[in-house]
Every structure is written in structure tokens, then in C-alpha cells.
């Protein structure tokens, strides 16, 4: 591809999934109207879910899911050795995601609850950056295809890749939503990174923070406001813990 004397190379991409629902990978096949164009930007070297062709000469590795077994650690380390750019793709990869809720109990307790006597290996759930160096994070449960597309285009054309630094409220207000706090609910919008077009609050369900903290959030003021409005503390904790994205801020 050529433009203005700038040559664009297709991105050699591979997609790998770990402990997750594979919903983020699936987003790559969404936005069908631009899918053909999108696929022209990338050269899929390895993508088990949609293709049987597998090569190991990729530059960019999209890592979906969190890490909860030792074979996953090894697979991930091998990918890190190959990839020039390793992308934590989706909330599970970026923060551990809902899977982290399992960490509330011990591995043995979890196994015996689900499998009884059978021995199944499981480690405490970790986010990708706890195992290998991450070059780029694309949060979201699931990731927003529009954002993914924009980022892939940036990588192809060599523009800077950025995520919004401000919180979800900005997008929520632009959607003319009634603030959920006004409806008596706790919403994590004021502390969560925007970029999702406030999809949850537009559907009138509180933001659970899947995109992780916005830049330089004012957690103290947020906790204060929840208290001031007499909202439930356990509800707040359940929400903050939901995707494990606010562990650094949780009191």
C-alpha cells in the first residue's frame, strides 16, 4: 500500500487466547461492513479460531485472556520471544478480568467445588503484564471493534496509538443519558477510561469499569461521593472487584 510517498506494510498479526471467553477475538470479525478493508490491513499469520493456517513469523501478537495454568505461562513466554509488539487484548489480558474473582478462594477449593475428586491444575489468575512485558493494552470486555480498528490503522500508518485519558462520563453525557447516580445506583463511569461510547450506561446499567482506571483518577473524591449519597458499600466493592481493574486503588 502506498500513500503520499509513505509505504504501508501489512501487519503480520497473530492472535492467541488464554483463560477467557474468546469474545474479544470474535470482535475482530465484527463490524462486517468494514471487515474486508480491515482484513486487507493485516496478514493473519496465526489465528486458530478462524483459520487452520498457522505460521510463527508474526510481528504483532494479540493476547486474549488471563493466565491461570503453567502451560499457559510457557506458551506466553514463547510468544513474547517472537512478537515485536505484544498486545494485551481485552480486559482479561489487561487486568485479569472476571476470571480473577476465582482468586477469592484457593485453587484446591475451586477444583473440588467444580470437579470433585478429579485433579485439575489451576493457578491464581494473573494479568498478562504480571507474566511478560506488554507493549500495548487494549482494554474492554469485550474490546470495542471500532477502537481496535483505529489502533490497527494507526499501527499500519505509523501514527501514535492512544486511548482516551478521560473517564466514561464524557461519552455518557454526550449520549444524553440520565446519570445512574441520579437513579440511585453506583456507577464506575467517573473513574473508568472512556472509549466504549458509554455502552453500558446507555443501556441503563452501571459501568463496572471493564476499561480500567482513567488517567489520574480522583479515587478519594469518588469514594466520598458514594458515601455521601448513602449508597451501599458492598455494592461498591462488588463493582470495583468485578473486573479486577481497580486493585491498585481499592482501600
Amino acid at each position, binding site marked *: *500500500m*502506498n*500513500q*503520499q*510517498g509513505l509505504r*504501508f506494510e501489512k501487519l503480520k498479526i497473530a492472535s492467541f487466547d488464554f483463560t477467557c471467553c474468546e469474545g474479544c477475538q470474535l470482535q475482530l470479525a465484527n463490524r462486517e461492513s*468494514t471487515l474486508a*478493508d*480491515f482484513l*486487507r*490491513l493485516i496478514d493473519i499469520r496465526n489465528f486458530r479460531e478462524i483459520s487452520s493456517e498457522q505460521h510463527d513469523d508474526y510481528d504483532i501478537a494479540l493476547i486474549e485472556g488471563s493466565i491461570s495454568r503453567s502451560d499457559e505461562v510457557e506458551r506466553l513466554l514463547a510468544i513474547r520471544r517472537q512478537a515485536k509488539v505484544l498486545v494485551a487484548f481485552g480486559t482479561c489480558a489487561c487486568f485479569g478480568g472476571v476470571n480473577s474473582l476465582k482468586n477469592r478462594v484457593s485453587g484446591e477449593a475451586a477444583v473440588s467445588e467444580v470437579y470433585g475428586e478429579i485433579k485439575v491444575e489451576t493457578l491464581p489468575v494473573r494479568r498478562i503484564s504480571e507474566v511478560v512485558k506488554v507493549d500495548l493494552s487494549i482494554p474492554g470486555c469485550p474490546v470495542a471493534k471500532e477502537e481496535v*480498528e*483505529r489502533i490497527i*490503522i*494507526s499501527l*499500519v*500508518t505509523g501514527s501514535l496509538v492512544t486511548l482516551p*485519558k*478521560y*473517564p466514561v*462520563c*464524557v461519552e455518557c*453525557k*454526550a449520549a*444524553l443519558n*440520565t*446519570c445512574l*447516580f*441520579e*437513579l*440511585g445506583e453506583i456507577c464506575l*463511569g*467517573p*473513574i473508568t477510561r472512556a472509549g466504549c461510547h458509554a455502552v453500558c450506561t446507555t443501556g441503563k446499567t452501571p459501568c463496572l469499569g471493564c476499561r480500567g482506571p*482513567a*488517567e*489520574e*483518577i*480522583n479515587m*478519594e*473524591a*469518588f469514594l*466520598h*461521593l458514594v458515601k*455521601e449519597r448513602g449508597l451501599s458499600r458492598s455494592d461498591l466493592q462488588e463493582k470495583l472487584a468485578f473486573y479486577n481493574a481497580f486493585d491498585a486503588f481499592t482501600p
Partner: protein
Amino acid sequence: MIYKIISKAEFKRFIDALVRSNSSFGPRMVDTDSRGEAVYQFQPVSSVDEIAFDYTRTASSAKHFFLPFRQELSRFHFHDDDWDQKVSYEADPVVLFGLRACDISALNILDDVLLNGHFPSAYYLAKRKNTFVIGMDHLPLPDCFCKSMNHHTVPTGFNLFCSDIGDEYYLAINSSKAFNFLREFETRDPQYDENCRLAERRKLISSSFRTEIDVTGLPAILDIEFDSPVWKKWGDKCLSCGTCAMVCPTCYCYSVEESFESDLQSSSRQKRLYSCNLVDFAAVAGGHNFRPKNGDRLKYRYYHQHRGFAENANQQICVGCNRCGKACLAGINPKDVINDLRLEKDTCTTSVSSSPARS
């Protein structure tokens, strides 16, 4: 300006005809909040029955009909090693019903900022010219302070403005279009009695304000109080969420983003309404942030609203609707912040030049 009297029933017929024939927006109830109060927004309406005539205040202003939250400024089409740029100022005609006096004042302020300077905004003008604005007076809510800002009445900036004088509306007709439409309906010239009722109505509105902010000399106070601890105090509460600016009828700051389309054959330059409260508003390449603290940024918004900038001849641009105060989760509102500043100013002037106590 031409004044007419119209019965409420006839007025509704008129609005219905207008609303059905054009793409129209008006106040509608969208929710009931946890205190049991109705929440209104300007929403699409297709018949007069959908309009909440007795609405109080919309949670978000009507600004976005003129300054969309996101708007394409131009588009580049690439071909070979060249490109073409397309700019279009087109806007579809829209009827906007039910704006309050302060909302229309806000539009007049935006006109000042965006049309009267050296660089008039054609994008804005296209929308402004194609929007048929119908205003409606109302009794202030407990937290409205537009009277303090002198925006509880508005002399211009609308096509039609109606004041509620009982069984009838007192119409101020400010455009030939509105006048022509009204020809098809039964109206009459105001009589002495109706003029009195209008005066009474205005008096009632004017005397119903329960929130007042003393804004005399505020620009000067703001200049002096640049380093006031008040900014830190309120800044510490601020979530930097931008809600205040998004709902405000006059906040117009923005950001421009450009991106390629997936086919790499074109790109779009888009404008997005931004807020000076957002963390990277004044951040430059290399990461330096000229306003790193919440308080710095909050202060800036108050400067813009209550001191004004050159583009607006250093006039205050806040109209006193208190949408920002109502929407702010942290409980930050113009009244409290300004009162705090005044207090700060008062204590400091007394300590600097305390006059001898009178006996």
C-alpha cells in the same frame, strides 16, 4: 419584533403543524430520578402530544444542536499520490421547541464567540441559520440563578418566544418565517390587559428566584484570586469527569482528531467537544501538562465562565442555568464556589486594609 396573543389550544395546533412538518426536537421526560423528580431532555418529537410543555429544565442543554458533541470538519480523499479535501457547511432545518430564556441567551453568547470574531465558524452558522428556535418562559427552579447573570429574560436570538399569561400565550415574533406560519392560525394583537398580564408574569418570574450569586466585580476578583486556596479545596473534590462542560449551554472548548478510514482511501477530521476539566486538556507533546492539578483545571473553567476571554470581550459567559451544579456528582456548583471566592476576597481585604472600627 411583533407581538401577538394566541390561545393555548391554538398554539398547540400551531406547534403540532410545525413539528409534524419538520425534523423537530422538544423537551420530553426521559426518567424519574431517585427523589421522584422528572428528568427531561431535548428529544426528537413528532407530534405536540410528545412535548412536555410543563417541563422544568433539561438535564443537558440544547448546545449540541449547534455544536454537536462530535462533528466532521472535513474529509480527505486520497488518490495516487495526491488528495482532495472536502468541507461542507450543510445543516438540515430543525425546529427546536421550548428553550428557556437563559438557553437562548447562551446561544447569543455562542454567536458572540463563534460568529463575531476574526474567524467566524461557518459550521456553527449553518446550524444556527437552519434552526427554528421557539422559546418559552418559566418560573425559576430553586437553584436557577440566571437573574444574577441577567439572563432571565432575552430580547433576541429566537424565532418566536412565548410567555404564559394564563389561558393564552403572549408571543414575541422575531422572524418573518414565524410570522408567516402564524398567519394560518388565529392570533390577535395584545390589548392593554394582556400587556399588564405580561408585565405581571415577568415580575413574578423575576421575584421567584431563590438563588442569587453576587457577581459584581467578579472578573476582577477572579484575577486577584488566581492563587486562592479555594481552587485547591474544590479541585480536590473534582473528578475531572467533564460532565459540567458537557451539559453546559455555553462551554464550547474542543479537540480535533483525525483518522484514516479502514480502506485508507479517505480520512476524516473531526471536532469533539472537550472540557477544560479533562486531564489532558493542556498537555503538549512530550507529556508536559500546563495544568496538572484538578484545581488548576477547575479554576480554568470558572475563569472561562465567569471572567470571560477576549473572544467574548471579557464578558461572563455563564447564563445561570445551574445545569453544571445539578449534574456534578462531586457537588461542585457555581454558587458555592463563587461565594467561597468572595469570602476569601472579603477576609483578605479586611486583613489588608482594615478600616478603623466605628464607635
